């Protein structure tokens, strides 16, 4: 590994079952603080399941998930302290942007943002500077502030989903395939917004299929295949080594460039 800092998030031998299916078979990787860690891999490799396991939406069947030295996921054999619930995990300062964005379509943009600001009882309680900063980052949110979020375009919904994750300072952002289904020009905007986050030293764990986005944003990378991490290293190294890309990501890479 290239960095000597203690990881903010660490997964050790994590196994996850969904019903009768054994999806993760011992996932190991670290997320260093202040960096963007990319989680890459083909469809079905277990990237989304990994994020959901970190969030506690699927329980960790074996192994441990540690956040800032504290066990948040693990079997209940007593050693690891067992599994924390999703709200508890969120309250430690982890924000999650799921693949489907998790927008409340019947609620307005304003109400969506208010819900994400746990400390605020009304919009007036939200830090104005932070709100203005988000509006600067995502002008569409200001424009459609009082509209039902369900009426936004796909790109705008994604902006709202990310803004929700940033409305209060969070220690770790888990973002699942934000570029999915978005037009290339909008992906460009999204990359710019995430770069701004990166400049603020936000720790991000980002799942992506879009390699351009991964190359533009990633500091470190973990590549998954069949429920395991098969490669860990610096993003720059992977970005410059086409044979490694070919070997680890196969055709799915070319298809998404």
């Amino acid at each position, binding site marked *: 590994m290239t960095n000597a800092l203690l990881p903010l998030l660490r997964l050790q031998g994590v196994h996850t079952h969904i019903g009768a299916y054994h999806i993760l078979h011992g996932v190991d990787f670290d997320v260093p603080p202040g960096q963007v860690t990319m989680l890459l891999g083909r469809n079905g490799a277990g990237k989304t399941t990994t994020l959901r396991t970190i*969030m506690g*939406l699927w329980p960790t069947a074996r192994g441990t998930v540690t956040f800032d030295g504290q066990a948040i996921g693990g079997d209940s054999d007593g050693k690891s302290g067992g599994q924390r*619930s*999703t*709200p508890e995990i*969120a*309250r430690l300062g982890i924000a*999650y942007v*799921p693949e489907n964005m*998790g927008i*409340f*379509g*019947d*609620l*307005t943009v304003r*109400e969506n943002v*208010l*819900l*994400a600001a*746990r400390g*605020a*009882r*009304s919009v007036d309680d939200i830090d104005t500077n932070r709100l203005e900063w988000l509006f*600067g*980052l*995502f*002008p*569409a*949110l200001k*424009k*459609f502030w*009082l*509209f*039902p979020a*369900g*009426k*936004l*375009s796909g*790109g*705008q919904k*994604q*902006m709202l989903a990310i803004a*929700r994750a940033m409305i209060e300072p969070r220690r770790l952002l888990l973002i699942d395939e934000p570029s999915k289904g978005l*037009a290339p020009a*909008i992906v460009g*905007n999204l990359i*710019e*917004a995430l770069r*701004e986050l990166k400049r603020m030293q936000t720790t991000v764990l980002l799942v992506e299929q879009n390699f351009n986005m991964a190359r533009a944003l990633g500091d470190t990378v973990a590549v998954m295949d069949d429920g395991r991490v098969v490669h860990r290293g610096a993003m720059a190294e992977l970005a410059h080594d086409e044979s490694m890309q070919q070997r680890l990501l196969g055709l799915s890479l070319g298809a998404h460039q």
Partner: protein
Amino acid sequence: MNTVVATQAPQSAAIPKTRFDWIPLAIVAVLAIAALPLIGSPSTWLTLTVAGLAMGMIVFITASGLTLVFGLMDVLNFGHGVFIALGAFIATTVLGAAADWTSADSLVRNLVAVFAAMVAAMALAGAVGWAFERVLVRPVYGQHLKQILITMGGMIIGEELIKVVWGPEQRPLPLPEALRGSLLIGDAAIGKYRVLALAIGALVLVLMLYALNRTKIGLLVRAGVQDREMVESLGYRIRTLFVGVFVVGSALAGLGGVMWGMFQQNVIPQIGAQVNVLIFIVIIIGGLGSTFGCFIGALLVGLVVNYAGFLAPPVVMFSSIGLMVLVLLWRPQGLYPVANR
């Protein structure tokens, strides 16, 4: 550096303003107007319409908790009727004990007695609801068949317990002195109690819409109905919220039971099972999880049942189910489908 321009995609201009769906509300008005020529006499029509709206309000109060309970946790509580029965029987006890006040020739005293019965019914139904959730519903989260069986079982046991406490016979629940009889508006006789029922129903609706739309807890309930996993991911304990909604829903069913019992002027232990059918029809018509849909559905059912009772008494039993069939043929998710479900 900060030249980020987020998606101002061309299609953004086409986004419509928040538009309220008026059609279901218009149907209530159209139904009422269409009934006028069929009934003939305007005064009879007015009497029936007020009666229908009052009945609708009572059904709405009773059913509103059920629709949120389903919307939040996918829990179909077939035992909801037991809180209605409980509320109605508590009213017989409280109003029986306050006979001096209910028979007094003073509207204020009568109302105080009625409100005392309502408060007692809500408090007890809410407390029993809390225990019901804890003991019966919690162990079967996510298991629909078991939920149906165990909540139905809960209702049967509740009904039997009511018989143990209050006896199996029908008990009278006479209206207090000042609420008997009718107000005459022209030739139309408007039941005094119906006016009170309308007022209380309107008050509950306003309070509920305020709580759901203007408070953070209400916001959480509305969000939880759409996507409970995301609400949890934002750091809120949806089960705590659910217990709160269950208790409030049970308390409102208790209130509905008091009002329903006074509407019928007598109470039988089977009242819960009887009303259960009606409230399930209402929440299905309204769109499961939708409070406003539940309100409109209740008004439609109240009007249809009252008009049918006058125009064609034999079809009364069928009329509410017929209405549900028609609504579902038109909107299979109910009048106001909840997004993301």
